[in-house]
């Protein structure tokens, strides 16, 4: 289940990263540049992220199953570290010290014990093409294929408070609190977007989305008239929180977050509605919890009482 990453630092110290996974709105061009930025100290806006072209990117299995950050993100961190190893050798050459005496922090290579003697990653990048040590191959680039030793395991808790109109079966979310743990957070804003999207889809599944069929096999749900998507009018307001438990095996401790909210939230909505109706004897309603189904369940429970 491996994915590759290729990183090349240009002579002026700007970079291009080629990845095997495919963004569909997740923001890879932003977040993967941040991983490189963290590891080698080039600002993310100077790192171009390329993807989605099999002629020009390394092999990999693509984006699904919340795997981009767990696998390709790891490959990106590892390829950057591989480039940094060579950069450290070049910095040692420029500073005329041994490689062991070089310290690296945020894009600056300095001499241990002599912190005023420094070279930036930009200095090193230029030297990689113009002034590299004897016997070293020129250039500053690498490729890395990462095969994850395990899955990453994001987790979280979703709490929902609803009110149900006993007469009409309508229900409304009063509060929705989601606390997710996706390990080290690369870009909190992008994560928030992922969680919001997932919670919205989770609400859609719990409340209204249904592809069903009549007895002749005709699909009911073939247009947006029948297959409902929650708009901003229906979607509840979400309150987010987080805990950070780094993945023990991922190079930067990150875990996948793409699926968390869609996976976990539908049960919370249904549990809340059932909790409200439990005094009437309702123990289960299958999704989607349309007003009609909730109303029917209420009526059935009352008839049984």
């Amino acid at each position, binding site marked *: 289940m491996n994915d590759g990453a290729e990183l090349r630092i240009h002579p002026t110290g700007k970079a291009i990263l080629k990845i095997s996974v495919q963004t*569909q709105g997740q923001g890879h061009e932003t977040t993967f540049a941040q991983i490189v930025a963290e590891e080698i100290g080039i600002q993310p806006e100077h790192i171009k992220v390329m993807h989605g072209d*099999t002629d020009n990117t390394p092999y990999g299995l*693509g984006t*699904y199953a919340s795997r981009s950050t767990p696998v390709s993100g790891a490959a990106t961190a590892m390829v950057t570290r591989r480039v940094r190893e060579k950069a450290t050798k070049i910095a040692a050459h420029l500073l005329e010290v041994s490689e062991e005496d070089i310290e690296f922090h945020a894009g600056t290579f300095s001499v241990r014990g002599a912190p005023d003697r420094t070279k930036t990653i930009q200095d090193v990048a230029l030297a990689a093409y113009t002034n590299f040590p004897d016997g070293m191959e020129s250039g500053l680039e690498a490729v890395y294929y990462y095969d994850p030793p395990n899955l990453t395991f994001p987790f979280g808790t979703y709490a929902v408070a609803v009110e149900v109109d006993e007469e009409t079966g309508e229900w409304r979310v009063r509060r929705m609190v989601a606390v997710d743990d996706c390990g*080290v957070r690369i870009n909190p804003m992008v994560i928030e977007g992922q969680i919001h999207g997932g919670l919205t889809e989770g609400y859609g599944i719990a409340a209204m989305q249904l592809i069903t069929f009549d007895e002749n096999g005709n699909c009911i749900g073939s247009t947006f008239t029948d297959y409902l998507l929650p708009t901003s009018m229906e979607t509840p307001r979400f309150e987010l929180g987080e805990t950070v438990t780094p993945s023990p095996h991922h190079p930067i401790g990150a875990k996948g977050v793409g699926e968390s909210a869609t996976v976990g939230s539908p049960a919370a909505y249904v549990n809340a*509605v059932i909790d409200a109706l439990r005094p009437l004897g309702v123990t289960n309603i299958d999704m989607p919890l349309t007003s009609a189904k909730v109303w029917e369940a209420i009526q059935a429970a009352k008839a049984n009482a």
Partner: protein
Amino acid sequence: MATETEPIRGIGHSVRRVEDDRFIRGAGNYVDDIKLPGMLHMAILRSPYAHAKINGIDASRAQALPGVVAVVTGELMAQHNLAWMPTMSYDTQAVLATDKVRFQGQEVAAVVAESAYVAKDALELIDVDYEALEPIVTPQRALESDAPVIRTDKEDKTDNHIYDWESGDKEATERAFAEADKVVSLDTFYPRCHPSPLETCGCVADVNPATGQATIYMTSQAPHAIRTVFALVAGLPEEKIRIVSPDIGGGFGNKVPVYPGYVVATAASLLLGRPVKWIEDRTENLISTGFARDFHMHGELALKADGTMTGLRVSLLADEGAFHADAQPSKFKVGLFGIVSGSYDLPAAHVTATGAYTNKAPGGVAYRCSFRVTEASYLIERLVQNAAYELGVDPADLRKKNFIPKTGSRTSRPPASCTTRATTRPRWTWRSRRSATPSSGASRRRHARRASCTGSGSRRSPRSSAPARTTSTTSSGWR
């Protein structure tokens, strides 16, 4: 060059998305934005029937429509050995129907024309002689002995059964239930839904007759894997295939599979020597591409009188549609089983799943879900909630009591190896649903506040010392 004092905006920074500039300006480059010189347009004729025999297809009227360049049928595809293609679960799926249609919306023929409008208009001029067959719309019906066989294309297939799968420790679980003070059960149905990404699926296939180079612009979440599949299926050398996935307007798993439209458009471009664009409309996306869920679930929880969970038993019936295009069931071990047994300190768990063909669209991988973790999370959290009510305790307290303790936790659990073998038929229990007539009642609002937890596989594994066993089979010995 960045100043030395400026902090590096690496991990932990809410850097603005560089993608948004072009998206907000309407300057994205999606597959439907791609226009190539000489490009033709393709539209697909789909079956109005869920299950019908095809006695014949007459495309002569469509062929005669000015602007129509070609009509592609299953017969033509079969001449190039492309009428069927493999799925991710080692099944086959019809590219264009030759013998029967097996779900409403199935691809029957395609028109390639000078404009998208002509292509669509020509679909109405294709005459298909259908002979309606009994449709099967539930997996329960599909597995009845007198149900018509959907996959008559498969040699020796005499039923609609796809697989039996099981994982966990059956004996230990049975023991736990025999010794339980309380058993709580739940029958529930996680219905079929669809991620419906904003951008529907489509492609522009450009096979250059001069160079033999095939460039396919495609709404794909996995372009590299697609290239390899195309090389293997079409027999094209891999270096001659280039898959380009430009800006993609949402996927959610819906854009993982290879769809018949991609294959037909590529074949048409190969045959005609011109680029061919195919973009499905919203209805086509909803009725024919990767759906999600459609799982009938039965769960049982064994508990001590004090609320300690001692065992979990789950049986599942999956409606896979007409072609098994879901993730391969052996992967349920890392998804479904890991999550349903993964949040609570369960000494024993056993899960069985059966898959059945029905006259519905294939799929199952979609909607932000890996290997059926969503169904698993839903079932266990609904079950625990109901268990709390039956025990008369607060659901949050019951959860807290049964979470895996921090001490002694394992942080990783490698997937167990899988074996393939036939298994015995699981027992199903179905709850009939009844509706009631309206009656008046005082309006009252009820308030609820309840929590649900997603799986947290980082914290536990079943305590049983025996390695979990996974079996799966594409059974032929069902009956």
